[in-house]
């Protein structure tokens, strides 16, 4: 051991060990029953469902999950009398003969085993010492002072493991061989196989420090952050799509890159936590802190029509409780959404008080229209340095042109005066009668505008007639107006204030004569809606559709959604001057056949003009501009002056070249900006009311209104006298007197290094989880982590430098018999690589891996049609090109509803919810992926190319070379014999079938090496396929 060779370190360690043994050297009496370890699981499993914290389910008013309950009295007896099992009601009931007395009752379908009863009896005999639930207890300290030295921490770690092994009459396994150890550390710390460069560097270091230097190199590698990020992204449910319904894409990659960078820079976990939960609440948050705060916005979102805002707001809030509790606390607070937690001391009130921390987050329940406009709430653009510079350059150029546009000159002023002179004046006309066919009430507002009220039919036709009209009308103007009586202030009657004018007909009639149609032409409008125009043949909600005789469908017409609450106008020229002869009436028929929720007109009026045609040429003036023009120059306000000047400069031919330049520069800027990824951020707004929802029912408005608070059982030193914020929550999570966060964190890091946690259940440290096998070790590591400033790299180094980490993973016979699950760590773990790493490994072995860090998500090969059942919009995956095909798996586009099938096959989670632990399944679909997914076939071919180009010429030399790349070791004779036979068969087959060889070699985007013989390369490709399919290749041991 390198450390032992250093005399100073050795002396220091000896001292610490002495100190440590003195502190922790309590008797290991196998017969001492510990409540948390031995008794609690029995009670939790068998009793708590009726005698736990759930008030609804509680029987006989008895609780066995609290100290008071356990040592209290029932009607007739005391539940537990220390040292007196025979007078303890609990023991009497569980040993009672069957019948009503017997517990648990038959209906509970639970049975206590005889040894469990024995344990309970012994515990009572020994004095029934009660401990609170281990995870909620303060972290116990085993050393007088925090260790200052990482090596000392490692030594304590090993001492604690070895002490437990001794108690189990087990011993540590021999050290793993160097190659295995380096390969293991490489996978664990950077998620990549042992590289030649690192192996060479290792060989060059002084032996005493070689491993430590190697570990330092891994920790300093930019791939370290990638490895840890894979794990973190599971917890915080990072994905590239919104998850619900249409599962539309959303740009989130800067968040992912931020996480990678934070772990690479070794940002202390306490700071990291604060920025994730409340980066936006920090004083003048940096862009990084804002991106980090995007954590709160990584949950699923919906744009499904018919979704009720309130329901989904409550879904999002509940999910945040589940996620934050799962990510930092490892507790299942989510269970308390509908009922008090059955096993842990969390109440429904705790759940909603926790939820209230997040009630300030700006968001929508229904992201209506987001599938079209991509607006999924607040986000920040995150340009690269180069992009920032380009954008600034374009801004400067645009600004310069804008100055030209804004500068008044005499010639412009003269031209504007002339233009104002030429503007059209309009006269409002009052209807003689009004009628709505489907029941709407039409009346005149005080200002003469027509207002709809009463019944709100889905479709409608208004008929207006006019008797008086100025002579020689050249155009009509329809003005739609807001009104406070209308939904969303109008001007329409749909819920969002919109309307659709599907057709406009104007006729004249004299007495009983046949009505004459008036031809209208050149319609223009001040605004035409472009949103939600997916199926619209005009590509927008165009005014032209109101004059087309419904040629392209009767449901299309003029609409103005984005301008709800504002006035707008539409102008129609008459083809010929119109003068009403006496006795003639003019009729307007306004068809509104869109349906889909009363898209009818709410408030509007009609005006006419006698100005010379073309009326529309100068564009349509808004009502404000029209009013400003009608006002004498010297009476206009400054705002009116400005508005007129701005408008004039936007239309005058004099400035056309300047405008064109701005337009094209703006267009370029827009294109560039589209390249810049954005990231969702948290913005705090006024808090929404949070109520306790009975049974989680979001429609129930009778529950208590609650404010933010930590779960009562865990709360310590909460600030008082003010409303608590997310910042308070974050600070509480990482405060010195919160024992949970550090325990949960180190337990999960331990899992990354051994395949299993010290407490096995990574997602539940509550009473239903498993108590840690090494509680002292867990507490020591948690305290050490906390006391050293939540230094993640130090924690990991403490673990991977240990003897425990460095031992072999091969099971000894003794260990297999005594400890088949390796709970006592008599050997290292062996487990399959995580999904992303399975492919990263193949790419690295074959030399295809492009190791760029960060950036937008990428699209490696995926079978065609895999997205067939996505909609709104329908999509087809487009395979990426060039380098983007060979990036690490954590950059693969994460489609929640249809995760890349080869990731899914290897148990990558869909990230719809917090995932603390991935399964490690072993399935035929995994075999199919490794055998047939083009990514792996191409990797095999690329490996074959390197083999043929770089190794010696004999088959054995080549196999050893390939094994060296794939497994960091040569092939054995037996392995070589199998693969040489495979090679011979394939050579024979491809010699006779060059087409097949060519077909195999052209799988994947990369062209095969031209200098290699196709037969040889294709035969070796199949040999390399066999190698890449080996269990050993995808196993970290």
């Amino acid at each position, binding site marked *: 051991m390198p450390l032992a060779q250093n005399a100073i370190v050795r002396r220091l360690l000896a001292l610490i060990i002495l100190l440590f043994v003195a502190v922790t050297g309590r008797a290991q009496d196998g017969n001492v029953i510990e409540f948390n370890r031995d008794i609690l699981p029995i009670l939790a499993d068998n009793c708590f469902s009726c005698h736990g914290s759930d008030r609804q389910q509680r029987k006989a008013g008895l609780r066995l999950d609290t100290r008071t309950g356990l040592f209290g009295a029932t009607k007739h007896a005391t539940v537990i009398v220390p040292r007196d099992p025979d007078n303890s009601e609990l023991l009497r009931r569980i040993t009672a003969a069957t019948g009503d007395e017997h517990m648990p009752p038959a209906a509970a379908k639970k049975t206590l085993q005889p040894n469990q009863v024995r344990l309970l009896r012994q515990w009572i005999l020994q004095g029934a010492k009660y401990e609170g639930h281990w995870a909620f207890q303060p972290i116990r300290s085993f050393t007088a002072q925090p260790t200052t030295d990482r090596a000392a921490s490692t030594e304590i770690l090993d001492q604690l493991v070895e002490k437990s092994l001794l108690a189990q009459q087990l011993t540590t396994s021999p050290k793993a061989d160097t190659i295995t150890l380096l390969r293991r550390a490489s996978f664990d710390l950077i998620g990549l196989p042992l590289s030649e460069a690192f192996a060479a560097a290792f060989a060059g270091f002084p032996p005493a420090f070689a491993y430590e230097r190697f570990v330092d190199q891994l920790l300093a590698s930019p791939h370290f952050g990638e490895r840890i990020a894979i794990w973190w992204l599971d917890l915080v449910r990072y994905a590239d799509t919104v998850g619900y319904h249409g599962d539309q894409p959303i740009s989130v990659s800067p968040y992912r890159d931020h996480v990678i960078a934070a772990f690479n820079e070794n940002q202390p976990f306490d700071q990291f936590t604060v920025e994730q939960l409340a980066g936006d609440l920090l004083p003048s948050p940096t862009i990084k802190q804002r991106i980090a705060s995007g954590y709160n916005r990584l949950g699923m979102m919906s744009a499904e029509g018919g979704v009720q805002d309130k329901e989904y707001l409550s879904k999002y809030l509940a999910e945040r409780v589940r996620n934050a509790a799962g990510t930092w606390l490892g507790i299942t607070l989510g269970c308390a959404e509908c009922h008090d937690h059955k096993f842990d001391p969390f109440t429904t009130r705790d759940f909603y008080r926790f939820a209230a921390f997040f009630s300030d987050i700006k968001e929508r329940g229904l992201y209506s229209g987001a599938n079209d406009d991509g607006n999924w709430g607040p986000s920040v653009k995150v340009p690269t340095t180069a992009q920032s510079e380009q954008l600034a350059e374009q801004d400067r150029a645009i600004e310069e042109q804008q100055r030209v546009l804004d500068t008044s000159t005499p010639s412009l002023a003269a031209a504007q005066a002339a233009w104002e002179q030429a503007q059209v004046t309009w006269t409002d006309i009052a209807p003689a009668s009004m009628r709505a066919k489907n029941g709407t009430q039409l009346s005149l507002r005080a200002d003469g505008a027509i207002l709809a009220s009463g019944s709100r039919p889905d479709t409608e036709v208004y008929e207006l007639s006019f008797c008086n009209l100025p002579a020689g009308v050249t155009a009509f103007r329809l003005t739609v107006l807001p009104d406070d009586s209308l939904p969303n202030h109008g001007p329409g009657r749909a819920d969002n204030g919109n309307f659709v004018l599907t057709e406009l007909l104007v006729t004249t009639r004299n007495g009983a004569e046949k009505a004459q149609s008036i031809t209208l032409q050149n319609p223009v409008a001040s605004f035409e809606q472009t949103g939600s125009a997916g199926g619209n043949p005009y590509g927008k909600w165009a005014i032209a559709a109101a004059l087309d005789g419904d040629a392209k469908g009767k449901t299309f017409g003029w609409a103005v959604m984005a301008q709800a609450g504002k006035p707008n106008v539409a102008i129609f020229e008459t083809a010929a001057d119109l003068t009403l002869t006496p006795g003639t009436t003019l009729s307007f028929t306004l068809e509104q056949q869109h349906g889909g929720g009363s898209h009818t007109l709410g408030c509007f009026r009609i005006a006419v003009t006698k100005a010379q045609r073309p009326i529309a040429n100068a564009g349509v003036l808004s009502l404000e501009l029209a009013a400003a023009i009608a006002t004498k120059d010297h009476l206009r306000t400054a705002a009116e002056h400005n508005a007129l000047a701005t408008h004039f400069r936007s239309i005058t031919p004099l400035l056309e070249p300047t405008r064109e330049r701005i337009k094209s520069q703006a267009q370029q800027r827009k294109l560039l900006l589209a390249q810049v990824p954005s990231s969702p951020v948290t913005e705090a707004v006024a808090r929404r009311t949070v109520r306790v929802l009975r049974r989680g029912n979001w429609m129930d408005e009778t529950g208590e209104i609650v404010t933010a608070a930590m779960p009562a059982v865990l709360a310590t030193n909460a600030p008082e006298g003010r409303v608590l914020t997310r910042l308070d929550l974050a600070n509480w999570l990482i405060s010195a007197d919160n024992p949970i966060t550090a325990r949960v964190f180190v337990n999960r890091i331990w899992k990354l290094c051994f395949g299993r946690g010290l407490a096995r259940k990574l997602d539940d440290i509550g009473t239903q989880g498993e108590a840690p096998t090494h509680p002292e070790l867990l507490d020591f590591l948690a305290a050490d982590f906390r006391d050293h400033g939540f230094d993640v790299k130090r924690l990991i180094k403490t673990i991977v430098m240990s003897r425990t980490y460095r031992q072999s993973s091969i099971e000894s016979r003794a260990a297999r018999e005594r400890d088949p699950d390796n709970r006592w760590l008599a050997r290292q773990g062996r487990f399959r690589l995580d999904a992303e790493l399975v492919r990263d490994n193949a790419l690295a072995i074959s030399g295809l891996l492009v190791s760029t860090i960060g950036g937008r998500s990428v699209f490696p090969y995926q079978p065609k049609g895999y997205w067939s059942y996505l909609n709104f919009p329908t999509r087809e995956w487009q395979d990426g090109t060039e380098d983007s095909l060979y990036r690490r798996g954590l950059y693969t586009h994460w489609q929640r509803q249809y995760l890349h099938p080869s990731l*899914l*096959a290897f148990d990558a989670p869909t990230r719809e919810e917090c995932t603390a632990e991935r399964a490690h399944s072993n399935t035929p679909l995994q*075999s199919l992926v490794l055998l047939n997914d083009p990514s792996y076939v191409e990797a095999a071919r690329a490996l074959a190319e390197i083999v043929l180009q770089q190794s010696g010429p004999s088959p054995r030399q080549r196999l050893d070379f390939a094994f060296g790349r794939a497994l960091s070791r040569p092939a054995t004779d037996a392995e070589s014999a199998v*693969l040489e036979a495979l090679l011979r068969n394939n050579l024979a087959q491809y010699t006779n079938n060059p087409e097949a060889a060519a077909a195999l070699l052209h799988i994947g985007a990369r062209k095969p090496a031209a200098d290699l013989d196709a037969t040889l390369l294709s035969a070796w490709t199949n040999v390399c396929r066999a190698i890449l399919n080996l269990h050993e290749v995808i196993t970290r041991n």
Partner: protein
Amino acid sequence: MTFPSSFPNGIARRSFLKGTGFGLGSMALSALLAKNQRASQDPGKQSQMRFCGVIKPRHITPRAKRVIWLYMAGGMTHLDTFDHKPKLAELNGKPMPESVTKGQQIAQLQGQPLHCFGPQHAFRQWGKSGQSIAEIWPHLGTMCADDLCIVRSLHTDAINHDPAHTFMNTGTMNAGRPAMGSWLQYGLGSECDNLPGFVVLVSTGNFGQKQPIAARQWHSGFLPGQYQGVEFRSTGAPVLYVGNPNGVSTAQQHDVVSAVRSLNELADQRLADPEIQTRVRQYELAFRMQTSVPDLMDVSGEPSHVLDLYGTKGGDGSFAANCLLARRLAERGVRFIQLYHRDWDHHGAVKEHSAGSAKEVDRGVAALITDLKQRGMLDDTIVVFGSEFGRTPMAQGDGRDHHLAGFTMWFAGGGFKPGFSYGATDELGYHAVENPCSVHDVHATLLHLLGIDHQRFTYKYQGLDSKLTGVEESVVVRELLA
């Protein structure tokens, strides 16, 4: 070619492997068979070639072995198909009584005037049992009315497609829980050595909005990945990655798989790691799937009277073709077969569209039931027919909106009472009022017929004994059992 539904011993498997034309070689095969004798402790790892599930023995004597779930995705209107409401016809166009709708959750009709919308199709009594079914189901009515057990009193918790599907399949609206098919794989294991035990087929119709379907609907959630549903596709490779790479013949693929196995076995000799043994078996299964899946999908060997019955030649991805595949999957021992037909979201033109969707489905369903019956398989196969929710008695233009308070599902075979109707909605078809039946009750009842007590079928997740039927009380609807 009909496969035995399982391979009870090594001999049968041997003959199957020979039948594929390139046996694995006697040495390899004997090694393979020897492996089957070894057992592993972990139920999730297959202790034999075939995993037999954690419920051993069954809690209850099972009536059925497998489920074929015909899932009318989008929300089939119950009012125009299986739940006749003359009163609704009477009130057509009149305002919906506020007493019915007050405080109720409504989807797209939120805040709009609510008017009654009468049934859009005539109903008839069919069969000896006189089942009341709309005339748009002529094949089903004529051929199968007396096989159906119709439940008209379903209600669900979710009113939008995505969460409603998730609720129907996993028993909760939150993502991350196993689908029923995955639960069954875990509980009962597989009866099939060369196909996955949970297969999903999807067809897309020509009516209604094409609502998305998430792969979450057949995900194994917190159960290990081997219990996941596998989608069989009608275009491209029927199962993802099931085809050999271009330029690799079946014999060559076999050589590669054999080499992998030999090398893995060498590693196993060094390490005796059960994971390696499992890996070896998974490669065998994968290799067999490469043959058995194309064989399954190729219906050219079906006699013409069978193809005529279904009205398909197969291979076109239609619902009828999938019904035929469902029968072939059932024959091969696949436990849970789910057919989605994406077609039933009829917000507009419900009259024309429900008729259109029914026409796409009617013949295939009737053929499937008839075919199963003729083969004696209906006795131990449960056919489930239904949607994630129903549709409103209120008009949405000339369509209907999503509706959660009352809708219809029906069942056939596998121990369900044939020619039977159960439960009812109110006279307007709004609320399930008579014998209301929750989604969890459906799950509990299906599990019961498969031999499982839903209350005892749990998996520890996040500290809870999680159940398909959730936390709330749910019951086996015994009235439905034959």
